Structure formats: structure tokens, C-alpha cells
């Protein structure tokens, strides 16, 4: 490693470190001052501890249950997608974009509309099974929460598990069968050992997402309990108790780090599984009973997952009558939002585009610096401290509550300006996605192309500009679009900050949903879905071009 590159590397590392760590430090400082001032811990330590333990228990329990259900729903789909060729296979795999492109608040809205007492599903069911029985408010119970989590995250399981499964050949299983093993036993010895890391990896990821679940629990949780994330929100917004929020987030982060550590271990093992079998296998046409099961699965997914999402579109154009008349279809909900008092929709769209656009640009810059630094650092010294540190920093936003980042930046900004805190916090959350995408595409470049450029007389700088940069530019653009999609759909940070001054689209959506003004909420939700979804289409395009 030359002197110049090492200086550059350490410079980049410092930038990333300051970017990620300064809000945490700022928050901790204020929280500890708060505690010392006696304002924080008015409760005796015993109740303090029991509050934390109770919410930790609930958080872990609901994450475990949600993960189990999500994987159970996803496994058949993963198997179908890995073994058979059928119409809708690509669509099934593409569903994995839903949890990333459609914010939870939108999916929550869809679920209430669809599964609620007056929802589409229960109306359809009542056609077949007569009038509804005693409604027990299933959605608002513990299992309702689990169901929402499971359906939101199952596409991740389908995508990740099938990506591995498609590479596992049947040879081992066949061998076991020839040796006299039954079907189940053959699967257990021939396929399962290679498949398990994939299942574990998907489970780990879904567990982490559910562990940090906030909006879903806030809306559906109520009586079932509160996740640590919701408790942090309560402590910040309703008690202004920063010390309590800090205590909660320390516990949360420790648990998440443990989870991430396990996840990275598993990832190492799936890479090994992938290396063992390089090629993907041929897909077969499903026959007889197989086709039947695929169709049943398709109906199940459409009925329980696509249905809710579609109902947003329908409800957005349904205009409820205020004077007991009939409902009409039209653009009434949109016009109310555009022309009504303080005209929330256009302002919300503009501020979302502005703030999230800015956050996405910041995240892209930080992500590119980090991704390049990681790549060069690894090239220079595989087992050095720098690449390890950057890798750890990439995980940080997944291990720390977004509330802490948001309040940290709030404390750092001189006038406590909420929009600065919002942009900075969202950028901190989004940059690892950029750096990971960039790093992956840098690693995918065949070193021989670069060598060829060099032998043809290009200087190292020129070689980098013509080979690497050209290859990674589309993936930077894609990652930037992705960063925008994440930040534009984020409702956690603005909710945590309690922003009254600037209303973003997800915030408007939350407010309308909370007020049970579903049709207007759907209209706003449709706009948000188009915005985050459109970015995703762009991203796909960019990938195709590349």
C-alpha cells in the first residue's frame, strides 16, 4: 500500500466514523446529563429494569414468531421457484422488492383495509359463509401483529432461500435414495445440510427487521405489548426522558449486534454452499400434483398478500359519502388532499422529494466513499483493521435505533432544526445499502480486464477510470435510487422527531391512517407507492442496462 492510498483510506474512514458516531455521542452526552440532572430516572431501578425486561421479552417473542411464520409461508414458494418453471415465477421472486420499496405504513394501511371487520376479505367471505361471526379484533392482537409481520417479510424468505436452493443439485439426494433411504431421509441427508444456512440467513434477516419493527407495532400493538423501538418513542416523545431512551437503545443494540454477529457467521457458510455448487440447475415443468400445489400457493399469495396491496388502489378512488348517501368512484380523495385546508398533499410530495432527495445524495456520497475505501483496503491488506472497521460500520444503522440517530443529529444542529436532523439521520440509515451494492459490483469485476487495460499501456489511474468506474457507475445510480426509495418511505425518523413543521408523505399517510380516513390515506399512499415503486423500476432498468 502506498503512502498516498493509506492516507486516503484513513481519511475516508474518519469521514465515515464521524458521520456514524457523532450523533450517537451527542445523544449519549445529553441523555447522561439529563440523568444526572435527576430528570431522567424518577422510577426506582427495579421498576426501571422490569420495564426493560418486559419489553425485551415481547420484542424477542414477537420477532421469533413472526420469523417462523414468514419462513413457513416462504419455504414452499422458495422450493417452487428453485425447481419449477411456471407462469408467475419471476413475479413471485420480484415480490422481494415489496418490503424494501413499499414502506410499512403503506402495507399496514392495506392490511387494515383488507382484513378489518368491514374489509374486502371479510366482505367476500361473508358472501360464502353468511353473515360475519363475532368479530374479535384479530388484527389488534398479538397474532394479528405476527401475521402482518409475516406477510410483509415472507418474500425475503422466498427470494433468499430459492437463490441457494436452485444451486443445490439432486445428486446427493439421489445417491441417498439408491442407498435405500426414504424420501424424507434422502432430503435430510442430501439437501438439508446445504439448504439450512440459507434458511438461517433469511430467518436472521427477517428476525432483525421484526426486532426493530416500529410503525406496525405502534398501530397494531396497543394492548399486545410494545417493542423496544416503541418504548424508545414513548420515552422520547411523551416523557422527554432521554436517559430511559438511552437505556432502552443500549439493550436493543447489544441484542441486535449479537444477531448480526450470528448472521455474518451464517453468511460465510452460505457462501461456502454456493461455492460447492457453481451452476444453477435447470428448471423442470411441474406435473400433476405439483402443478396443483403451485396453483394453490399462487391463490394463497394473491388472496392474502396481493389482495391487500390492490385494495389500496381501489380504495384510493372510492369517495365516501358524508351525508349517508352512496359511495362514488372518482378523484375526490385527491382533490380533497390538494385543495383542502392547508393543502397537505402537494406540500408533502414536495418536502418528501426535497428532504429524501437530499438524504439520498448524502447517503450516496458517503456510501461511495465507504465502498471504495473498503474495496481498496481489502485489496491492499485483506486482514487489516480498516476493512474490518468499515464492515462493522456498515452494520451500525441496522443495530442502532433510528430515533437515536435522529435525536443525535437534532442535538448536534445548532438551532435544533428538525429537517436537518431528518436528512442526516436518513442518510446514516441509507448509506450502507449504497456501499454494499458498490462493493459487490467492484468485486464482481474480473481482475483480468484491468490487467488487460494495463498491458495495453493504461496508467493505473486510467485503468481505474475506464474499467472500474465504468462498470460501477450504473450500480451507483441504482443504489442511489434505492437510497431514495428507503428514505422517501421512512416514517420512523419523522415520527420519532415529532416534526410538526414539515410534513412528509409517509407522515401524512400515518396521520390519515391514524384518523381512520382510509380513502384519503389510500390516495396519499398511492402517490407514495408510485414514487418509491417508480424508483425501483428505474433501478431495474439501470441494472438491465449494465
Amino acid at each position: 500500500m502506498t503512502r498516498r492510498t493509506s492516507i486516503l483510506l484513513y481519511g475516508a474512514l474518519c469521514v465515515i466514523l464521524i458521520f456514524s458516531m457523532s450523533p450517537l455521542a451527542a445523544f449519549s452526552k445529553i441523555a447522561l446529563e439529563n440523568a444526572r440532572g435527576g430528570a431522567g430516572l424518577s422510577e426506582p431501578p427495579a421498576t426501571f429494569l422490569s420495564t426493560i425486561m418486559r419489553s425485551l421479552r415481547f420484542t424477542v417473542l414477537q420477532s421469533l414468531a413472526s420469523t417462523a411464520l414468514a419462513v413457513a409461508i416462504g419455504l414452499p414458494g422458495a422450493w417452487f421457484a428453485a425447481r419449477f418453471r411456471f407462469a408467475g415465477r419471476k413475479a413471485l421472486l420480484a415480490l422481494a422488492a415489496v418490503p424494501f420499496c413499499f414502506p410499512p405504513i403503506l402495507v399496514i394501511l392495506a392490511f387494515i383495509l383488507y382484513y378489518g371487520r368491514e374489509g374486502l376479505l371479510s366482505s367476500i367471505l361473508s358472501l360464502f359463509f353468511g353473515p360475519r361471526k363475532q368479530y374479535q379484533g384479530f388484527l389488534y392482537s398479538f397474532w394479528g401483529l405476527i401475521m402482518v409481520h409475516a406477510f410483509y417479510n415472507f418474500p425475503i424468505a422466498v427470494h433468499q432461500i430459492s437463490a441457494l436452493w436452485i444451486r443445490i443439485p439432486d445428486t446427493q439426494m439421489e445417491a441417498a435414495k439408491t442407498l435405500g433411504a426414504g424420501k424424507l431421509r434422502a432430503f435430510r441427508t442430501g439437501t438439508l445440510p446445504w439448504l439450512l444456512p440459507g434458511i438461517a440467513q433469511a430467518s436472521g434477516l427477517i428476525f432483525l427487521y421484526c426486532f426493530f419493527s416500529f410503525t406496525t407495532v405502534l398501530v397494531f400493538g396497543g394492548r399486545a405489548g410494545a417493542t423496544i423501538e416503541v418504548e424508545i418513542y414513548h420515552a422520547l416523545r411523551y416523557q422527554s426522558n432521554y436517559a430511559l431512551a438511552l437505556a432502552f437503545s443500549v439493550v436493543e443494540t447489544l441484542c441486535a449486534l449479537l444477531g448480526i454477529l450470528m448472521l455474518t457467521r451464517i453468511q460465510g457458510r452460505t457462501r461456502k454452499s454456493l461455492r460447492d455448487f457453481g451452476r444453477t440447475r435447470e428448471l423442470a415443468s411441474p406435473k400433476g400434483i405439483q402443478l396443483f400445489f403451485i396453483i394453490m400457493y399462487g391463490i394463497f399469495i394473491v388472496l392474502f398478500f396481493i389482495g391487500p396491496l390492490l385494495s389500496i388502489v381501489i380504495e384510493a378512488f372510492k369517495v365516501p359519502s358524508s351525508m349517508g348517501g352512496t359511495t362514488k368512484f372518482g378523484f375526490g380523495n385527491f382533490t380533497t388532499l390538494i385543495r383542502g385546508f392547508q393543502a397537505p398533499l402537494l406540500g408533502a410530495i414536495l418536502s418528501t422529494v426535497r428532504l429524501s432527495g437530499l438524504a439520498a445524495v448524502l447517503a450516496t456520497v458517503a456510501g461511495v466513499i465507504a465502498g471504495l475505501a473498503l474495496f481498496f483496503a481489502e485489496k491492499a491488506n485483506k486482514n487489516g483493521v480498516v476493512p474490518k472497521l468499515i464492515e462493522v460500520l456498515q452494520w451500525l444503522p441496522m443495530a442502532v435505533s433510528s430515533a437515536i440517530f435522529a435525536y443525535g443529529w437534532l442535538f448536534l444542529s445548532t438551532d435544533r432544526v428538525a429537517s436537518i436532523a431528518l436528512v442526516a439521520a436518513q442518510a446514516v440509515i441509507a448509506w450502507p445499502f449504497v456501499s454494499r451494492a458498490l462493493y459487490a459490483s467492484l468485486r464482481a469485476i474480473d481482475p483480468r480486464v484491468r490487467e488487460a487495460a494495463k498491458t495495453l499501456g493504461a496508467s493505473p489511474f486510467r485503468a481505474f477510470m475506464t474499467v472500474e468506474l465504468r462498470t460501477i457507475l450504473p450500480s451507483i445510480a441504482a443504489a442511489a435510487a434505492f437510497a431514495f426509495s428507503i428514505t422517501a418511505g421512512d416514517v420512523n425518523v419523522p415520527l420519532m422527531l415529532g416534526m410538526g413543521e414539515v410534513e412528509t408523505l409517509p407522515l401524512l399517510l400515518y396521520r390519515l391512517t391514524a384518523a381512520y380516513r382510509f380513502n384519503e390515506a389510500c390516495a396519499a399512499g398511492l402517490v407514495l407507492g408510485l414514487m418509491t415503486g417508480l424508483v425501483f423500476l428505474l433501478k431495474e432498468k439501470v441494472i438491465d442496462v449494465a
Partner: protein
Amino acid sequence: MMRTRQFIAIFLLVGGLFTANNPVWAQANAQPNPAGAELVIWTYDSFMSEWGPAGQIAEAFQKAYGAKLRFVSKGDGGALLSALLDGTKKPNADIIIGLDNRQLAKALQSGLFVPLSLKNLADVQKNLLLDPTNRLVPYDFGQFAFMWDSQSGVEPPRSLEDLTKPLYRKKIIIMDPRTSTPGLGFLAWTEAAYKEGWKNYWKRLSPSILAMTPSWDTGYGLFTKGEAPLALSYSIDPAYHKAYENTERYKALQFTDGHPMQIEFAGVLVSSPNRELAQKFVDFLLSAECQAFLPETQWMFPSNTKAKLPASFSVVSKYPALNAEVGDIDRDPSEAANILISSP
């Protein structure tokens, strides 16, 4: 490759534009009150929602005084008080609207409000003037009551005790006492009715509660969507259904325990650079003209005795009042909520 470049160029251009000239930025960085042209009012969601009175009030005030109002919602009532008392953030507002009688003592203790001398105070119903220093003045009031869906086929309860009957299993919606003022009001109600035994009552009540919602909006929305036949709300709500839906399907229930009052207050902050104008606004808020906006937007009684009541209020009955306070406002709400969360 060409298209990729175009895309990247557009992306960078758009990104650059955001950074260079960002109006949201400018707006957020601006001083809260440039040249006294605008008053900033902190309130809760439903006051400034499309159905709330904020729009009409702003228009009328601008006509009369030529000054603009900017309403900023802090979420629900609980978050409003918390935002106000947060020692690390200065409240950058002139006026607060929406603290209720149970939050009064805590709000006054903060010393954040200035005493007001208002001429319309003379017309305000005397029993509502809970703050003798007139730092926080009452602008409307109502009574808590349970609303009942008469088409649900469920027999209406007649007391708090009735709500604990197995007949009402998972049939009642209440609000979270930590976050919403009706939730806090219900806690006060149970503390007044059961004295030391209120925690025991909440334990017995627990099986009947379908949902404990973070705000009144959510809870009442659930109720009107038919998710439960009973919901904690206000005795005035039948007027709303009469005016908007011309139905008397939803009825307020009279309980033998009596009904606690909710009185809502407004005040001017010491830190306001426009105290004169802000005081004029609060006086305007109490005037008969402005008070006439409140009944059919806030769905509360106006505090000014000279304000006219709309026809829809004919379906509202006034119940025997119950004097109800929360014993320890810092601790009781979370204890009550925790009883519901940790039990089935």
C-alpha cells in the same frame, strides 16, 4: 451505456438542485416570527385537521387583525405537553392551544406562560376558570362518556362496574392514558370512582378492552368502522353523527358514577416575541364570534356563554358532573397502561 450516463447525469443534476436551493431548508432555518407578521400556534392533530376549526379561525383572524396564523401539530395532547416541557428544546411558538384540566397544574408549574388580561373573559362560564392567574384560559369543554352502537345488539352498560362484566369481553375501545387526553380522563374517572382500588378495577376491566389506541382519532375511527360496540369518547358525539350522517345510531351512555369534565385551555408563551398580538388572538379565541366555530368542529361546548349552539346539539344531554383528578400524573398513566399490556 448512453442511457446509463443520461440517467446518472439527471440524477446528479437533480441532486445538485436540491442541495443548492432548498426551500424546506430555508423555511426550517427561518426565525419563527419574522417581523411579527405571523403567529405560530402549537396544538394537537384534530384541532388543525381538515375537519378541525383551525382553518376557519385563521381566516377570520386574518380578516379582523391582518395577521397570519401558522398551526403546528405536535401529535396528540400528551405529546403537546411533553414537547412544551422538554428542557432541551425551546418551544418556538407564540401560543399553545389544547392542554386540558388534568395537565393544567404541570403546565403552569413550568412558568412558561404569561398572565393575560382579556376582555372576553367576562363572558366565560365561571366554573371553568381553574387558573386564577389567567395564564391558561378555557376555550371549550365537554364531558367524557362511553359511546354505544345501538345496532350492535349488545346491551348498553350503566356504570363503570358494568364494563367489567363478561358480556363485554373484547367489546370496548379506550385510549392510552400516557398519550391521549381522553385516556388520561378515563384514568381520572376510575380513580375518582374507585379511589385506592382503581388498579384493581383496571385489572378486572382488562378482558373487556379490545384495543387501547394511542389517540382519540384512532379509537373513535375503530368504533365507527364497527370494530367494537363501545368506545370511550365524549357526551357530545351524538351531535356529530346527527349533523353529518343524520343518524342517532350512536348514543352516549349515562353512567351512575357521574361524568368527569374535560376543559381545554390556551395560553401565550413567555418566550413569544409577539406577546401583544398573541394576547389579542387568545381574546379573539374567546369571543362569541370565534367560539361559534367550535361546537361543530371541536365537538365541544364553547366556554363563552354568549356563543350560540347549533341545532345538532339538541341531541346532547348534560350529565351529573364528577370531580375527577389523576393522583400522580407522572406515574399513574404508565401504571394503568402496563396493567392492560401485561394481562390478557
